[in-house]
């Protein structure tokens, strides 16, 4: 596609963006209220009570339907630029989520989050290093899968791949695996959560730890409880998510050192260099919002200002998630296979199930948030 600049670029964004806004508007204004009252199988609100559908899941499903059914597998040219803004919206939403916390509340829950996450991150990495060798996987692919399954899925895979000289074909299969697992858990987790009567705190801790691709953690939390407020699933899940995102550069460093051990290359790898190249600076925005919230500069909890701020946040997330759905190509996910699938599936399932058991056994129903 021809590179556009200035106003032409802005104009190119408008059709796709308008389409995303229109979709979300229809979902929130008409579809969601209709679902709350629709009678199916003799039950009022069946879509909400039984299928646990809300505007977040609907936004993702709408995006997926557009790409996979309406557009035959790829986002059309007219919408492409607009849909590329999806990451901007999600990153913005994540930063604004920082306003749900105060520094004190982060400190309270952060300790549990850091302990659980670090145990799972390095537990998964060592598991994959062992199981990958058993499966006679290529060292570079073990490195990519260890980072992908250990910490943040796709983000960690692509951050690690160049450092361990992974074949891009292997990375493609690794991405299909972790993304497929993440999407499946996004739809399955709310059902399990409701079935086991998990509280928002337990659910946030579970999916924040157990979901392979942390890109789906927020959506999975919002699918469980679409309310954005302190003490809800998304508020807890996001703390877990932030810890994972921050740990990406450290995991990349660890995996890279493991890959190049005893080679001259290690001399050129420094933690500082990796942090400089890979640290997601939007996380600083998240902590800025937390600081502002701690200073009560965004309005008092329960005030109309905070209410409006969270409404704006929910629209920003919704827009981002319509776009996220449209980047999911079911046919491409079906291609997951070979060693990445075997190892990824084993690690993913192990992590998902073990996290649930640990949360049920050791994490209290409610946090002192």
């Amino acid at each position: 596609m021809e590179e556009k600049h200035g106003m032409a670029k802005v104009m190119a964004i408008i059709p796709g963006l308008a389409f995303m806004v229109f979709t979300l508007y229809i979902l929130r204004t008409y579809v969601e209220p209709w679902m709350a009252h629709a009678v199916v199988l003799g039950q009022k609100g069946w879509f909400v009570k039984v299928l646990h559908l809300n505007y977040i899941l609907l936004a993702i499903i709408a995006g997926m339907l557009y790409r996979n059914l309406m557009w035959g597998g790829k986002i059309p040219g007219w919408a492409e630029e607009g849909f590329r803004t999806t990451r901007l919206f999600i990153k913005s939403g994540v930063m604004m989520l920082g306003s749900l916390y105060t520094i004190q509340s982060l400190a309270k829950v952060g300790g549990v989050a850091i302990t659980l996450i670090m145990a799972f991150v390095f537990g998964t990495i060592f598991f994959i290093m062992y199981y990958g060798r058993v499966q006679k996987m290529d060292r570079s692919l073990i490195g990519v899968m260890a980072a992908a399954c250990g910490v943040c899925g796709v983000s960690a895979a692509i951050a690690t791949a160049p450092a361990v000289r992974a074949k891009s074909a292997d990375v493609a299969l690794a991405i299909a695996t972790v993304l497929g697992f993440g999407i499946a858990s996004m739809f399955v987790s709310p059902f399990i959560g409701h079935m086991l009567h998990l509280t928002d705190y337990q659910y946030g801790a579970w999916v924040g730890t157990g979901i392979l691709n942390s890109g789906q953690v927020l959506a999975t939390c919002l699918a469980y409880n679409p309310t954005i407020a302190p003490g809800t699933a998304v508020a807890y899940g996001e703390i877990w998510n932030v810890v994972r995102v921050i740990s990406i550069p450290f995991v990349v460093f660890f995996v890279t050192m493991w890959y190049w051990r005893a080679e001259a290359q290690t001399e050129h790898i420094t933690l500082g260099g990796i942090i400089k190249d890979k640290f997601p600076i939007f996380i600083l925005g998240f902590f800025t919002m937390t600081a502002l919230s701690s200073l009560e500069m965004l309005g008092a909890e329960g005030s109309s200002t905070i209410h409006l701020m969270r409404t704006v946040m929910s629209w920003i997330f919704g827009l981002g998630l319509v776009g996220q759905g449209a980047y999911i190509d079911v046919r491409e996910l079906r291609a997951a296979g070979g060693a990445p699938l075997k190892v990824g599936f084993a690690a993913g399932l192990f992590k998902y199930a073990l996290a649930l058991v640990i949360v049920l056994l050791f994490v209290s129903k409610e946090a002192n948030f």
Partner: protein
Amino acid sequence: MSEPKKNTKMTVFKTDRHEDLAAMFFVTIAVVSVLVYMAYIVPSITLKAPMDGKVVAISVQPEAQVKKGDLLYSMEIKQKKYVHDTLEEKIVTKDFHAKTSGKILSISAKPGDVVKKDKNEILVLEHEKGVLP
């Protein structure tokens, strides 16, 4: 043979670093807009029921001036709390205070009304300009 184009165009922005900065800028605009709108543009705010329950007392009168922290109304609500991992439910009376100073324009609810969260109106407050309601 044609020279392949550099395929580093990832977002509408040049790199993720630009995208991160753009997101920070966007959030700043969004937050400042909300704060300015609420502090200076909105003339009055409608306080809706913050949770499901029953209004038991209204502590202010129409046209009354209230200060931040003054008691506005009280509600009987069902409080759910986990005590030793067991859900305990009890009916408690909760007081709701003014988040900002201002003047009460009207009161829609009366003691005894059963209200639904975010659905039923309790009162309308004209807040002081420049403060966040």
